[in-house]
């Protein structure tokens, strides 16, 4: 747990949540993906969402980012009930998301992907146009902040490596996430340096007062930056713990559904 102390935790102040999700249910036909999940994220905190495969984490954050409409439940954004009908609405409210599938288009250039749906423009009236020069500059410099030197902003995303692609998605969300930044397993394909970069970035944006929702399967990464931890299991919350209230081992057991983890860990020599 050496990374545990890497970042200074501001012990998230008891401010009003930016987004509050109350008893969210989501059904896909006869599949109940979420069976009443409550969750909130406050300005300046990193709230980790943990859980096994298929627990419903991605489904949950998709209701927060306007992709899915919850079957039941209420979403409050800065205290008022919010009804995002599509991701664009959520984005305009200042919620940016790195989706697990990244939402990148392989045939399009890095810059065009980066600004997809939110293109900077210059000129007025009929002469209003996509400001490609600015877009390219911003894209290259944002990527460099994440520790990746693009060969060229006009390179197609399809030719990037998996981790580079993930970094573009993260850089994009960080750039546009004015109030809430949602990261769905953002480090799954990243190298050591890029991973610490992402964790440092989470810490940086948190200090700017942005609320971060961080999904990860890696307890060490979660503990390194998380202020609160909510564990999902089979569409329900197993509870929320504050940093310091829970040990890494307990957290790991909860994430695995509570069973047999110790046994497994034993047979693997404590390497998990």
């Amino acid at each position: 747990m050496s990374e545990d102390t890497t970042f200074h935790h501001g012990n998230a102040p008891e401010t009003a949540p930016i987004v509050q999700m109350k008893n969210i249910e989501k059904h896909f036909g006869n599949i109940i993906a979420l069976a009443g999940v409550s969750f909130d994220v406050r300005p300046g905190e990193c709230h980790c969402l943990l859980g096994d495969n298929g627990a419903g984490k991605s489904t949950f954050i998709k209701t927060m980012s306007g992709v899915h409409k919850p079957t039941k439940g209420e979403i409050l954004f800065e205290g008022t009930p919010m009804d995002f009908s599509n991701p664009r609405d959520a984005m305009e409210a200042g919620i940016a998301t790195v989706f697990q599938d990244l939402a990148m288009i392989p045939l399009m250039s890095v810059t065009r992907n980066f600004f997809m749906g939110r293109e900077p423009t210059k000129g007025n009236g009929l002469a209003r146009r996509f400001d490609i020069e600015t877009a390219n500059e911003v894209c290259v410099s944002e990527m460099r902040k994440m520790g990746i030197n693009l060969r060229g902003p006009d390179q197609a995303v399809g030719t990037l490596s998996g981790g580079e692609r993930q970094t573009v998605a993260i850089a994009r969300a960080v750039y546009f996430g004015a109030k809430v930044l949602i990261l769905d397993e953002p480090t799954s394909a990243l190298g050591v340096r890029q991973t610490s970069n992402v964790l440092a970035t989470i810490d940086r944006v948190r200090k700017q007062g942005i609320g971060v929702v961080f999904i990860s399967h890696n307890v060490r990464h979660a503990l390194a930056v998380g202020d609160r931890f909510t564990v999902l299991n089979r569409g329900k919350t197993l509870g929320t713990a504050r940093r310091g209230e829970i040990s890494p081992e307990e957290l790991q057991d909860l994430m695995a559904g509570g069973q047999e983890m110790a046994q497994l860990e034993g047979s693997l020599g404590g390497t998990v």
Partner: protein
Amino acid sequence: MTDTSQSAADERLKAEPFFSRLMKRPELGAIAGVILVIIFFSITADSTMFSLSGVINFMTPASQLGILAIGAALLMIGGEFDLSIGSMVAFAGLFFGVCVVTWQLPLIVAIPMTLIFAVSVGAVSGNLVIRSGLPSFIVTLAFLFILRGLSLVGLKAATGGSTQLRGVREAVEGDWLAPFFSGDAFTGLFASLAKMGLIENFKNGTPKVPGIPVEILWFIAIALTATYVLLRLPFGNWIFASGGDRNAASNSGVPVNKVKVSLFMLTACCAALVAIITVIDAGSTDARRGFQKEFEAIIAAVVGGCLLTGGYGSAIGAFFGAIIFGMVVIGLTYTDFDQDWFQVFLGGMLLIAVLFNNAIRKRVTGER
């Protein structure tokens, strides 16, 4: 963070040769095709083919097809098809004919009405595709038959049993808007050029080519506008994104459904424009107008580098695709070849273009 020389100095970045950069442009194939076809006809065809009158001769059908092809190309880049373009030409032609002949409306009313009418039909088929989630191929195939059938039925109703509605030319004669949609532009310029002997003229000094047919100007203007929209406007980015991956685009905040429906409306509008131009030109409208133009337009778009799967292509490519088309249709009459080779050529060209595009796409996406 303003130092951009750093990325240029990336040691893992080979200098990309000009040729390989060019290879990644979607319109490359069409431009190469134009060159090949020109070479072919300069060897086999009568030399008059590339005289001014010859060029105007093949550019006229190329323009009529090209206006459709550019609409079809944008829609294909947006990830959808419209097989009803050809029928839409007949249907909009019928509506336009009824407007000017039966209802005696001036063009300033008839043309906007026809365009709005076609755009509404396009909105209906577009919304059907988007809302049902069915492949646009099937939905617009249905519209291919529905619109063609309605054109027939409507023509019979409008004319009392005939499948041709005559009298358009008489009806629009003298209308101040007519010169924008029919006849030739720059006639004065061409006449004086001919007097000076700078272009071919008849013995009495009048030019062999009285001017540039207006459809050619429409064609060029639409190609330039479409290219500007695709490459320089946020909407162009949305078209590429919607066609590339609709989920990813929508999750990134692109209003995918609106983009797609507006593209269906655009193709319908292009079809209506072609209908107006050709109906005024012919002086009548009939139920076979625009027959099989949907296939020709899609072929021109594919030759121009559009991928059938969407998300990639160019309007300039479709522009050249349509020119190849016009050159071959008309060019064969300048040669000793049988006209019917045209169909063989069409199929062959499509096949080569698809293979070529596939290779290009692999290059762009890094062979994945």
